[in-house]
């Protein structure tokens, strides 16, 4: 392992300058992915840019209309220890409490999990179900895009060479809406998802009719999937075993997994159906509690 420069910019401007100094870079937030990758020789860079000293990246706040903007480097523990987020966005807590153990959660962050762009990233299906967008920044300015449009392949994304993730933006959730995220792992802890699913259900005021649904599945394709068709198929339906099963079938049809040491193609397609159904069921419970 060769020597690596360490930079700790204290503003976005300094970060953008560091990104343009001609060296290859990786971001260091929690470091729970990048340090392992560097040590194991899976990645090689000239410099690490520590993004835990940039104010915009280490704070979070509710917007006036009820959305939540989370700085890319805010550790998960800070999020799940916030009672208001626990109450208002339980689906965010579902994923924030699942990534790693307590030590990892005290450092790891949404921006890192998204930026690492693993197909099995546990925060992503939850955030896609919630309709999250990202704000990316560079010396040229900022741009916003839906989270599902960020990923281009395993470990690959649309970030330009001088660009970084500033915030994750969760829009205000509809009334009578509920969301749920879960994953399947062979053990009960310390594992990478074989399949993970996030789902949101928006009910009408009566609670009997589905007005909207968003379903996202991870670990079954080169990128986390937003299966719009599965959610669309539920619009106008009543929430029943049959309608959920149909949506789960559509999600399973969208899955194009591989066989590896974490699971087989057949197992992953099957689990996509099982987990989607169960996620819709739990999301419905939350919508009705709301």
């Amino acid at each position, binding site marked *: *392992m*060769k*020597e690596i420069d360490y930079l700790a910019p204290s503003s976005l401007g300094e970060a953008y300058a560091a990104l343009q100094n001609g060296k290859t870079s990786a971001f260091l937030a929690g470091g729970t992915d990048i340090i392992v990758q560097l040590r*194991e020789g899976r990645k090689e860079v000239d410099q690490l840019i520590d993004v835990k000293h940039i104010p915009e990246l280490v704070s979070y706040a509710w917007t006036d209309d009820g959305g939540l903007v989370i700085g890319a480097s805010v550790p998960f523990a800070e999020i799940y220890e916030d009672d208001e987020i626990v109450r208002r966005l339980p689906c965010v807590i579902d994923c924030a409490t699942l990534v790693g153990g307590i030590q990892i959660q005290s450092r790891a962050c949404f921006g890192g999990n998204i930026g690492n762009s693993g197909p099995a990233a546990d925060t992503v299906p939850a955030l896609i179900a919630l309709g999250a967008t990202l704000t990316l920044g560079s010396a040229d300015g900022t741009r916003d895009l839906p989270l599902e449009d960020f990923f281009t392949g395993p470990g690959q994304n649309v970030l330009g060479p001088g660009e970084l993730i500033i915030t994750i933006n969760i829009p205000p959730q509809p009334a009578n809406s509920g969301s749920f995220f879960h994953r*399947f792992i*062979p*053990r*009960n*802890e*310390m*594992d*990478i998802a*074989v399949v993970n699913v996030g789902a949101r259900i928006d009910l009408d005021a009566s609670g009997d009719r589905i007005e909207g649904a968003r379903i996202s599945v991870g670990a079954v394709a080169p990128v986390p999937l937003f299966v719009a068709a599965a959610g669309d198929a539920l619009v106008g339906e009543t929430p029943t075993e049959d309608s959920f099963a149909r949506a789960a079938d559509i999600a399973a049809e969208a899955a194009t997994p591989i066989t*590896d*040491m*974490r*699971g*087989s193609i*057949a*197992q992953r397609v*099957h*689990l996509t159906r*099982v987990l989607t159904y169960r996620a819709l069921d739990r999301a419905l419970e939350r919508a009705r509690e709301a």
Partner: protein
Amino acid sequence: MTTTEKPDYKVIGTRPIRPDGVEKVTGKALYGADIHLPDLVQGAVLRSPHAHARILSIDTSAAEAMPGVLAVVTHSDLPVVADKVLDMGEGASTASDMSKNVLAADKALYRGHAVAGVAATNVHDALTAIEAIKVEYEVLPPVLNVQDAMRDDAPLLDESRHSKTPTGEESENASNVAAHNRFEGGDVEAAYAEADVVVEREFDTKMVHQGYIEPHNGTANWNSDGTLTVWTSTQGAFAVRGALAELLQLPVSRIRVIPMEIGGGFGGKIGVYLEPVAALLSRKCGRPVQLTMDRTDVFQATGPTSGGHMKGKIAVKDGKITAAEVSLAFEAGAFPGSPVMAGAMCMLSPYEVENFKVDAYDVVVNKPKVAAYRAPGAPNASFCVEQLIDELARETGADPLQFRLDNSAHEGTRMITGVAHPRIGQEETVQAAQASDHYQSPIEGPNRGRGVAGGFWFNAGMQSSVVASVNPDGTVNLIEGSTDIGGTRASLAMQLAETLGIEYDSVRPTVVDTDSVGHNDVTGGSRTAYASGQAVYEAGLDIQQQMVARAAQLWECEAEDVEYADGGLRHTSDSEKAMTFAELAGKQMETGGPLQGRGSVVARSPGAAFGVHVVDVEVDPDTGKVDILRYTIAQDVGTAVHPAYVEGQMQGGVVQGIGWALNEEYYYGEDGRMENASFLDYRMPTSLDLPMIDTIIVEVPNPGHPYGVRGVGEVPIVPPLAAIANAVHDATGHRFTELPISPRRVVEELHNLQ
């Protein structure tokens, strides 16, 4: 549960704090990687990226010229050694195979096989330098399982190796089968013809690793006087010394091995990997050299245990097992020496089986050379036999534990080796499991099932040697040479305290290096509490005798008139004359000088251990995940010296067995690369995957030990594989004959997925 009247022990059976506990929990204990020496340099090992390749050339010149590089070694730096068998205590190998495993010679036989070593002023330079070593490989097709390896047209790992056949001859053609042995007795065909029920199945298991937390390490200092000092994490300092003497062609007297604290071994830290390479590097550069492995190295290049293929056929008549025919083929890894013979000899030993035919094949494949792992060979073989027995009990409508009890071996029953069991606790152990609250409670609810299985392990004896020095204040320093893995400092100190009738706290045990005590075989084979315990007992008797002589001298009487009792000396007829142990300890100078007791044994009567396990599971039919709801283990431990450590051994064996049963496996790509060489993807159970494991200690004393001690540590890993498979069958109606019974395998089976 005590099945026999136990003597009124004072120390044995209590649960004192372990002497090494505080240092370990406060992080002060010194492990191999904690060694820092003046001028110490770091090394790195270049490993083969191919599972099977001929090494055409190795060019180290560029690496040697790099800044910071002090030495580079390859196989050509090792002396030529003979085909002499090296018995490492739990598993044997020839010196030439071991030499080729330490640094590959003409062939790389598994991915991760060490090819060259580098020492440099820091580890970064060493890691950079190994990349500069140019190795020219001719890549060959890898052989990755026993069935492929046994085909006539299989690529051969060693073109000069022929099979040893059951008659002792060599096979005509070269083969990947290193040895085929057979045990045969009675007439199986006649028994099958008369049987009520015969069941027959094939089984497959995968290579698995012990998964100890501490990676291997080795630090060597080759002094300019030609002596070699080695600091290492090992189960047997003397085994390391013996192996180094052979591999480096040095007299044992020139080698001093200092055993550091060990972060787990389970059989996997008996062989040598880094130590000889560090020694060669140190000889070349004249400085002490340290080598350490990372987790990937540990998985790819140490000694896991075999996977294999098994066929079994067992018959029953009138509720009695009448015949068993079992064929076992186990992966040895790159060099011969799988534990298939141990598996063959263990799997039927809990039962009376008159007619049998057992074949055992030791098969080389392009995977790391296996090492011992807790009751090596027995868990795999019992996975086969104990599932067939479960099926027989079901088919004949018998309760699975009663069926086992009705067929249990007892004193005098001959094993397939022809050796008769001495007093054993098989029946008592089955009865204890039958009487358990667990077995007496019904299992209810959908997708739930219960399984049971039994297991046997020989336990080992071998050599141990200790010295006990009496301090003037009445305490005793116990000098021993057995690596303390499972609390043996405590269990040996307890046995000495019991023998001398003094307090446990009065005995201070220390594990010393190979220059400082007589020979001690490895901490393995569940032998230490038993065999070193026997040495400790003898040292205690030696002290007693010397104290009696000294008391007679002080009291001016005959030694016959003095007796040692209750931790002191007394005159048999003059009640005025009595001394405590401490009082006499304070009079050493006037009674002949420093008082030392010695104990040296070749222990030959290790009482065998039996265990019976009961497990309840729940299977999620949608995801295939198996949850362990409840687990109870009953085991004959002879005498529980320190019951808390006995229970810990029982629970630890079960935990490793659960991992082996449900998720652990070496997952190989077609190119022979282990794709899950990390704790993330190797999937040992975490605390959240386990229930409390209830233990039932059965005590049928071993007649071959003064306190009745039997080995405890290994047998608890034998039954879990089959017990869990039997439970999953009970829950789902599907019999899983291939390990691991992972969610993937279960869901694919239950939903018929392709």
